[in-house]
């Protein structure tokens, strides 16, 4: 296990370095002088010179990367052009908001998708199964940003049950565990849950179907165990894979939430990215993407390690 953990870590390092290189290059693939990409257009000549030497834009690319990654490792992601504040603090707050909504969405998606998948897998090739597979394939192919708008139209505009947009009462962004705050979370979380729901439902259906046809389950049934007992065995065997799928989906949602956060004006990383794009705030764009991508890489690693802890067979593949 320790050896596997070490191996898995060692495999993650080159990927992490590669990801950082891609993020670093984002500023350089932007059209024009990279200096204009990291400075406001009205920056003074003095500031320009200062930034040029700080970023090392006059040096070759590998050196620039070295300087940049050194600052990043010390927690310096540069300054936002639009607000002038350090990117790190902007991103930190946004990441927490994003995690809240992504975690809520994953939980809903896992629950709904899990139930859907179990039912479909248990009653394979019946009308319930077909219905479940239609629901899950709708969930995968719906443009979720549109679904968000539709939900707003129904539940906010028409019924008036929930707030349409925003990250909390009065736009304060203060998080609390009461309805005044949580009601803002409902629609974005449900909208976002549709994607993992479809995917989890599909994997669980396949898993349950596969486990049910395995010899040991058939043997249990033959031994006269009740359906409930057999079902418990099925759940126990399907859980590790289902959790792994869920973990990865959480990562995808964190990275892919930009559209939904825009629809709901949810003050997360997606919203931050949107702002960065509109104001061509490249340091903010770069910092946010680096943090999100690294989060995803680490999440991948954790999911793998957890899975191998639960199911030792994973280590061998």
């Amino acid at each position, binding site marked *: 296990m320790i*050896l596997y953990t*070490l*191996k898995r870590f*060692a495999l993650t390092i080159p990927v992490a370095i590669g990801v950082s290189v891609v993020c670093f290059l984002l500023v350089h693939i932007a059209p024009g002088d990279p200096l204009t990409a990291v400075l406001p257009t009205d920056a003074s000549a003095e500031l320009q010179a200062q930034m040029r030497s700080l970023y090392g834009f006059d040096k070759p690319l590998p050196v620039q990367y070295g300087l940049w990654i050194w600052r990043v490792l010390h927690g310096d992601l540069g300054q936002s052009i639009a607000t002038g504040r350090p990117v790190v603090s902007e991103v930190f707050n946004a990441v927490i908001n994003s995690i809240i909504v992504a975690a809520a969405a994953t939980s809903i998606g896992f629950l709904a998708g899990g139930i859907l998948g179990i039912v479909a897998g248990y009653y394979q090739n019946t009308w319930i199964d077909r219905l479940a597979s239609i629901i899950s394939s709708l969930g995968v192919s719906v443009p979720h940003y549109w679904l968000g708008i539709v939900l707003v139209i129904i539940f906010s505009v028409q019924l008036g049950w929930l707030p349409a947009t925003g990250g909390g009462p009065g736009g304060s962004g203060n998080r609390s565990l009461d309805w005044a705050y949580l009601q803002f979370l409902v629609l974005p979380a449900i909208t976002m849950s549709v994607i993992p729901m479809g995917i989890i439902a599909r994997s669980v259906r396949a898993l349950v179907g596969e486990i049910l046809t395995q010899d040991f389950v058939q043997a249990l049934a033959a031994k006269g165990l009740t359906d409930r007992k057999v079902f418990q065995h099925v759940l126990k065997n399907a859980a590790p894979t289902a959790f792994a799928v869920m973990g990865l989906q959480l990562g995808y949602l964190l990275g892919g939430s930009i559209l939904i956060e825009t629809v709901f004006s949810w003050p997360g990383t997606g919203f931050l990215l949107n702002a960065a794009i509109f104001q061509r705030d490249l340091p903010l764009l770069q910092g946010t993407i680096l943090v999100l991508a690294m989060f995803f890489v680490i999440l991948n690693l954790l999911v793998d390690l957890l899975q191998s802890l639960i199911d030792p067979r994973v280590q061998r593949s």
Partner: protein
Amino acid sequence: MTHFEPISPLSVLDPRDRGGPVQPLLTIQGLKKYFHSAGNSWFGAQSVVRAVDDISFVIHKGETLGVVGESGCGKSTTARLLMHLIKPDQGEIIFDGEKVGIDIPLTEFRRQVQMVFQDSYASLNPRLTIEDTISFGPRIHGMYESKARLISHDLLARVGLDPSRFAGRYPHELSGGQRQRINIARALAFNPRLLILDEAVSALDKSVEAQVLNLLQDLKEDFGLTYLFISHDLNVVRYMVDRVMVMYLGSIAEIGDGETVFSTPVHPYTKALLASMPSMDPDQPTREAPLSGDPPNPINPPSGCRFHPRCIMAEAACSQKRPALETTRHKKSMAACLLQNRDTPIPFPPIKVSGQ
């Protein structure tokens, strides 16, 4: 190395025969192939699999040489090395007196040596029709499509498949026996002199297997072929071959005249292997498995004689010195066993061979 008299003289005078009947068709000298398992390049220590470890033998013109041994003994690797599908680490392959790759170019060698694989389905491209599969070889060597097609139809008829019914079919529409006949036809498309049959009938049903074996016997006559017949099925080998080679963990344990090796084996491994065959005599049933345990891992082969950990005869010297192939007492075979010239005969069949 002693050469034995070729058992059956060539039935036709072949213009390609340069060395004459005494010149072996194929001479293998010191063939070696170690596989370096990739493992994990950062942590795990590299391990070396000694798949084929320094073997030398000859195949005479017109004979059928059988190769037997447990799985993992290097039979298939040897076949693939001969075809140059994998590159040998060491060793010479001499075809009819000419060194392959030096005196005779590889492409020419490959026209004269062809191979039939075990898995009849995996060895046929599922997207090509039967006639396309058979005519592929001649076509890439520049033959016109119409002529290659005619040849493929002729070959189909020769392997017992009606060309009008089978030429336009796809592999998945055929049975295993039919597919293996196609594979044989494809191998014959070059009119080769040596055919390597790597477990070619092992995956077939017994009744189909017999039909294909008879077909192979007939084709051997018709085409003047020489066979290298690899199989783990000793009954089939006994039926097919003129000479037989017993392999154990990448090296040759015993080689010689088929009937002699089967009736009076010398090497303890050969004896154990033969004793493990289900007995056909109801008065003397096989009581105990004379070979127990799996063959040792070729990654870490035992020192000295490869077989000594499983050998009932093994003495201290066996774990020290690796035996060379030596002519046996009855002169009709060669065996690699230090004890073969002792006065105490090696018991046959061995009573029990301890496992690992």
